[in-house]
């Protein structure tokens, strides 16, 4: 009678591997995105330059199962008629197609925060861009290490 050690050991190994990768390769926020992701972002931008800040992506740093990864995206905003978040675009940089979701928000929500569950085919960055009612763009990204990919297979 002994408990199966496999899952927790796998997590520990993944954590250890992740720690090594992070310490060896500090990745700048401006690290190059894949061409399809950059093209999708460029279509949204229309000449505007996204600023850093205000957008928060909450994702697990390590996802054992890429088929269902919980994601929360929130934006600092008063959500009033005069000043609110209109749209949040989310992309997965290394999925077969980068589109994840487009959220359309209104002041009636009172708070700019949305939860869903996503599929990630492999370890990659998730990128979120918020478009404000005044046309300003804010952007953030977060890396998720995926143990078992979630695209077909």
């Amino acid at each position: 009678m002994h408990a199966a050690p496999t899952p927790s050991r796998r997590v520990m190994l993944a954590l250890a591997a992740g720690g090594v990768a992070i310490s060896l390769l500090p990745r700048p926020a401006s690290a190059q995105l894949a061409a399809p992701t950059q093209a999708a972002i460029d279509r949204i931008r229309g000449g505007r330059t996204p600023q850093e800040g205000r957008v928060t992506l909450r994702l697990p740093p390590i996802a054992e199962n890429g088929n269902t990864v919980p994601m929360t995206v929130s934006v600092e905003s008063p959500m009033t008629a005069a000043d609110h978040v209109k749209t949040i675009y989310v992309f997965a940089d290394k999925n077969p197609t980068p589109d994840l979701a487009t959220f359309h928000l209104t002041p009636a929500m009172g708070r700019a925060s949305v939860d869903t569950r996503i599929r990630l085919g492999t370890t990659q960055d998730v990128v979120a861009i918020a478009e404000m009612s005044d046309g300003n763009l804010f952007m953030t990204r977060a890396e998720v290490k995926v143990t078992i990919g979630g695209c077909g297979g």
Partner: protein
Amino acid sequence: MAAPIGQPRVRIPAQARAGEVIDIRTLISHIMETGQRRDQAGAIIPRDIIKRFEAKFEGQLVFAMDLAPAISANPYIAFPFKVEKAGSFEFTWTNDAGEERKATNDIKLA
């Protein structure tokens, strides 16, 4: 040939105080076939997803989401809502074939 859109489940408080921001959580049963997978004969299994979710309060659009194949099967979508008055919510899920599934919930003022 689209997969059936399953029973929607919505968790929303039955009542709230005016000015309170509540959380609305929704779940719908659906395969969310990506169009990337192949069957045993090697043929691509055609894409079949819920592509749009809308939440309306008293007929006014409050929140909407365009979904991609990278949204997990049985899509879970949660969002806030600032309660100002009693009224009725209508939630609509639409698949690639244009078929819809709706759910309605009333909210009262506490």
